[in-house]
């Protein structure tokens, strides 16, 4: 049954335009940095951005740019270019698209502003090290590597000391690269905004606990941009406050993101950026709502370690204990918590050829979820930005079969 135009309008987010406007202004400011005399730092998505904001250095995220490239379906061409430059198709497609984009100023915004410095935090993967090294050579700018050791289960004193010492080195690096003194009072203020934005982002995601859910993970993939790029700024706090109000309003009015929500699903791994709408339509047709995901919660999952009163110390722990830097046992715990919290019926796993650390433990996680919660799962394969090898028919067949199983199992449970 096709939904009426009025129904569709009701489901549109007023905040979407606001976010596009903020992101547009942000990219205009970043791309005008040379004229305004501001410094630009490229930083990994899991990197500690707050000190940059406190130093008035503009943070730029090649990964966010990669997502934009993917969503604009420009990843295939750029990855082909990277191939011509000698980079294997088996490397991360964020990295390949970005490396090629630097050379041709391609992509939806004509390339990123050249960096004055690079900040690489290896809490998300080892690929970022090689990627940022390549860019440091290309742009001939200094690279700071923020080395966060892998945490099996805990966060011992030695890790704490090692990471904390690097925060001081990081600040010294920023002072030297920008020629400015670090302002601790300003840092406290930025830290406060960062924690506040993360709390709000978590609250936004939490609204999906409601049935029907006011949002899907595809919406979260979109609204994620600000918490990634500009956490620590007042504008971000204001935005998420507005978004939360909008979500709560939808909850109050019973507006579900998916008409006739019958199945609630959990998404694992990064998005398939060039097929977001396509996937969203397929699941909607199955009356299934992807109510949560393991990816977007990474930008608030560390709140339990954060303390705005001692921001720099707690930041060290928060950035070290991100989802991708913990053991699979911890990941399983986290996934099971989400299954329970959001009332999940099924698990959709994106086996992402671009992200080996995210994809490698998926089989064990899948088994644990099946054993401990008895819910079915499906694996869809892609390279998150490089659309050249994606098979729509294979993905659709798998999703259809999975939904069939889900319908049966939910039927048996009498839901």
């Amino acid at each position, binding site marked *: 049954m096709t939904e009426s135009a009025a129904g569709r309008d009701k489901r549109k987010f007023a905040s979407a335009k606001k976010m596009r406007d903020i992101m547009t202004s942000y990219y205009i400011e970043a791309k005008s940095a040379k004229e305004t005399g501001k410094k630009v730092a490229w930083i990994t998505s899991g990197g500690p951005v707050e000190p940059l904001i406190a130093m008035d250095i503009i943070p730029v995220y090649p990964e966010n740019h990669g997502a934009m490239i993917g969503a604009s379906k420009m990843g295939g061409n750029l990855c082909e270019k990277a191939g011509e*430059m*000698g*980079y*294997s198709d*088996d*490397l*991360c497609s964020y*990295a390949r698209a970005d490396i090629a984009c630097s050379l041709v100023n391609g992509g939806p915004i004509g390339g990123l502003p050249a960096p004055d410095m690079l900040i690489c935090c*290896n809490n998300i*993967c*080892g*690929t970022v*090290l*090689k*990627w940022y*090294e*390549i860019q440091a*050579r290309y742009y001939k700018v200094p690279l700071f*590597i923020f*080395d966060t*050791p*892998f*945490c*099996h289960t805990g966060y*011992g004193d*030695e*890790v704490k*000391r*090692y990471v904390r*010492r*690097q925060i001081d*080195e990081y600040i010294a690096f920023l002072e030297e690269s920008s020629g400015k003194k670090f302002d601790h009072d300003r840092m406290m203020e930025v830290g406060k905004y960062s924690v506040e934005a993360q709390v709000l982002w978590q609250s936004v995601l939490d609204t999906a606990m409601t049935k029907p859910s006011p949002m899907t993970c595809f919406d979260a993939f979109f609204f994620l941009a600000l918490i990634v790029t500009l956490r620590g700024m007042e504008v971000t706090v204001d935005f998420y406050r507005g978004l939360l109000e909008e979500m709560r309003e939808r909850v109050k009015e019973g507006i579900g993101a998916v008409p006739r929500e019958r199945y609630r699903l959990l998404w694992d791994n990064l998005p398939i950026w060039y097929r977001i709408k396509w996937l969203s339509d397929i699941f909607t047709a199955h009356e299934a709502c992807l109510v949560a995901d393991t990816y977007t919660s990474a930008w608030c999952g560390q709140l339990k370690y954060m303390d705005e009163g001692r921001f720099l110390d707690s930041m060290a722990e928060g950035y070290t204990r991100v989802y991708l830097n913990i*053991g*699979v*046992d911890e990941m399983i715990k986290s996934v099971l918590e989400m299954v329970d919290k959001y009332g999940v019926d099924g698990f959709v796993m994106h*086996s992402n*050829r671009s992200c*080996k*650390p995210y*994809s*490698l*433990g*998926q*089989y*064990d996680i899948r088994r644990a979820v099946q054993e401990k919660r008895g819910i079915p799962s499906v694996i869809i*394969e892609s390279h998150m930005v490089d659309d050249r090898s994606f098979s729509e028919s294979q993905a659709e067949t798998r999703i259809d079969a999975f939904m069939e199983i889900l319908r049966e199992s939910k039927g048996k449970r009498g839901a």
Partner: protein
Amino acid sequence: MNSPHLAPFLDALSMEPARNSVSKGGKAIGYFCTYTPVEMIHAAGFTPVRVGGGIAAVTAADALTPNFICPFMRVALERALAGEYRFLSGIVQGYTCDVACGLVHIWEENIGGEIYHTVPLPYNDSPAARDFLRASLQELAAKLKAAGGCMSDGSLNRSLALYGKIRKTVMELYELRQSGKLPLSGADFYRVLQAGFVTPPEDYLVMAERLRDQAADTDETDTPRGIPILISGSLVEVPEIVAICEDAGGAVVADDLCTGYRWFSHPEGEGHDPMERLIDRYMKRIPCPSRTRAEERIPCLVELVSRSGARGVVFLLQKFCTPHLADHPVLVKALKERGIPSLFFEMEETGIMEGQLRTRLESFFQVIG
């Protein structure tokens, strides 16, 4: 010299000596790559055994891993699932790449054993990084103790000395082969080296010293024939690939492999106590791309090419290996700028496309010959 006596090395490759050490009441611990502090495993009373992959059809491991990780890890897991590594008490691994780290957990879940541990290695070399590495190694010592091991400064000193001697001896084998006194084909030479990863180190030292002495005593020389090349990559576990390089007209005179020179070079580190010496060696060794920037690797590679007289470099990379694949374009460029040609070939689970490799090598040798 008479034909070098290879039988003990070939026997050791079957892992029989390692299995025997377990059947006599000892314990063996597996590891994936050469950033694992095997000296500590040994000092705690265990036999370190490097887990191998090689070539095999992957079926059982398909249900546990995606098909876009390196063949080495997938085939190794397949072999483990088939029971080949049942004699190991677990896996200890240094966190070098994301895949090695992830595989430790998959082994623990699916293969079992009493000790599983990943040593978090710092990426940079700084006083803070060395302090952290020391603490990480102390954590490993505690884990080894919990598994029934017992390491002291004395036993670590002895293990460092043993591995130092092995490395020095193997470096001498490299030199003897270079000078023509050790007339081994590239394939056989790498069989000798590979045995070093799966043989109890006390036994391997005796075997390597015997081979060295046999070679050193001879006045005859027989240098490898063919166009001298260096092979570069991570693991080249299948000697037949080296044989193809040589059959096609090359002579493998040097390598930049973690199944070769990168492990055996730089015999010992410096420091006031054994732990400091261990850390120093790991920090100063010829690095793997997962542990350092290409800028650090380029001078090592160029120096190896120049010292060995290689006329070209053949990159033999594991498919899907991010650190090596990401460094590859800049290495090629750096070599080209110095007039050193190179060729690139990927190894897959099902092996290599022999015909294609042979043809490409022959063309390469024609150009550089």
